[in-house]
């Protein structure tokens, strides 16, 4: 009676998982379980709702704003009132509509910049973490040097020479975030590459490329996802800062950072509303991405 006993299947994480003895053992169960856990987290719900709202605003653009954010002029500097929920700005445009429409540029630019930086950073990070040795040493130095370059400054320099087009803003932010992503992914890869399944793959003669992309990458996808969400938040911040400094998105876009830079001086004249609402919008978007990132991270490592 040596081995006739087949161990029953246990579904779920190692220690604190509920006893689900599911004979069918669907492969999607785990994912669904995580989703269920995610959906239960208030942080995730709040974050997603805010995010969704801004995405709707970004997609809808001026089709869904109550008034035309760029071309509709009323009396300028009206306080928030029934006609203009958030008041009007220095030119008499509806601040509410502008805040809604202002989501578009940053919501296009930030995720693209984040995607690019995460793609490049992951590539570098995986290579460094997998090959280690001199490859890692050399790239590490370069990354360290890149990290020591002042982000906003270089962005401003590049933009001041090449002009402030969306592509350049996105590219610049992406390049600037790449080393940070690379560092995180490198650490994750380093841990992953120590695992025996990587040795097993080498023992059957897999190429480095295969090991990195097919074996390691899926296992650090969680780290990468979290990194991505975090980067989106930072990209929103950085792009807004660039816009504020005049090197990001350009007028007449109702972009938030730009609007703030155009209007923040009016606070002193008592016109706080054209500045405050875009600022809250930035904050809400950053908070929302953080909440989502945190939730994913917690559920992933639970």
């Amino acid at each position, binding site marked *: 009676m040596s081995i006739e006993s087949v161990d029953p299947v246990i579904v779920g994480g190692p220690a604190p998982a509920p006893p689900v003895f599911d004979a069918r053992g669907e492969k999607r169960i785990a994912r669904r379980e995580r989703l269920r856990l995610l959906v239960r987290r208030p942080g995730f719900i709040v974050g997603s709702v805010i995010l969704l709202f801004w995405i709707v605003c970004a997609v809808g653009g001026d089709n869904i704003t109550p008034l035309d954010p760029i071309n509709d002029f009323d009396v300028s500097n009206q306080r928030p009132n029934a006609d203009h929920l958030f008041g009007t700005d220095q030119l008499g445009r509806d601040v509410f509509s502008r805040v809604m429409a202002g989501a578009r540029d940053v919501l296009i630019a930030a995720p693209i910049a984040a995607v690019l930086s995460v793609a490049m950073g992951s590539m570098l990070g995986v290579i*460094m973490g997998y090959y280690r040795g001199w490859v*890692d040493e050399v790239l*590490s*130095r*370069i*990354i*360290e*040097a*890149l*990290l*020591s*370059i*002042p*982000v*906003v*400054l*270089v962005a*401003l*320099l*590049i933009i*001041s*020479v*090449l002009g402030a087009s969306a592509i350049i803003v996105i590219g610049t932010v992406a390049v600037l975030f790449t080393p940070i992503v690379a*560092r995180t992914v*490198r*650490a994750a890869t380093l841990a992953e590459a120590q695992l025996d399944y990587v040795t097993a793959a080498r023992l059957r003669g897999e190429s480095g490329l295969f090991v990195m992309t097919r074996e390691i990458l899926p296992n650090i996808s969680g780290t990468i996802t979290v990194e991505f969400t975090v980067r989106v*938040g930072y990209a929103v*911040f950085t792009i*807004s*800062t660039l816009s*504020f*400094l005049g090197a990001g998105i350009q007028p007449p876009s109702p972009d938030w*950072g730009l609007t*703030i*830079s155009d209007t*923040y001086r009016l*606070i*002193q004249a008592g016109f*706080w509303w054209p*500045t405050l609402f875009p*600022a809250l919008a*930035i*904050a*809400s978007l*950053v*908070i929302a991405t*953080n*909440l989502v990132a945190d939730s994913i991270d917690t559920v992933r490592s639970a």
Partner: protein
Amino acid sequence: MTRYILRRVALSLVTLYLLATMVFIIVNVLPDDPGRRIAGPFAPQEIVDSLNERLGVNDPLLDQYARLLRNVVTFDFGESFKFGQPVKEVMLPALGRSAKLVVLGFVLTVPISIAAGIFAARRRNSFADRSVVTLGLASSSIPEFVSGVTLQFVIGVQLGWLPVLALAPSDAGLIGELRYLLLPALALVAVYFGYIARITRAGTIMALDSDYTRTAVMKGLSGRRVLTRHVMRNALQPTVAVIGTQIGYLFSGLIGLELIFNYPGLGSLLVNAASDKDFPLLTAGVILVGVIYMLTTLTADLIIAWMNPRSRLAGDRA
């Protein structure tokens, strides 16, 4: 420990070299004509050409590169295009001002955020914990230029409690200077409180859950002693690392605040240098900022190594 320091310093020098090279590449790859920038769009071409000649931008690249490296070694970058003064003389006062603001900001931020982080970690998942985390997240999600303007308007203009400009008159004295720097420093607190508190909280939770904390508790130590002797030394290592990087970063990263509070620090100096294409100043500035960044991270690493002898073995963090 000496070995560790030497190794870290050596690596930093390599990084510095790479940084200088990168700056060189950026400055040279970008299509630009510094002579035209300085002389302005209306100047005749001859003037522009002679300016370029004087600036040496037409020299062979290798010569320029060698010159840059020499400049880095001697830390002498010649004269600023714009100010016509030695770069050092333009930069050092700005550096001093940035340092004051950053240091004051962190002197204010670090104790309260560490205290809040530890407090939150000890009451994990309680209402107090959630409040600290949420408040921190919210405050650090508002760009510093917005919180800066708001503080300036409310505290400086409306209430008139503090000066609205950050640069103190030359006869202000130390306390006076602090008073002038307080508003922008408070804006920094708003941004960094949440960040540092969160890092501290995470580190503290890890340390609280560790076996050595368990050992300490089992020895019958009081809660306070466990915290101060066993938890904090371990828990604060990530915090120190983060503070190191952020201080380094902030020397040039406060452009928005410097603008709002009309504080002529390194950030705005270099931004102006970038838009004026004042390459000697810009190059020197970027390298200086890089060196500061390396120094602060190095210091952080050394502090961590001192806090935790084991980390000396791990060598450097990439």
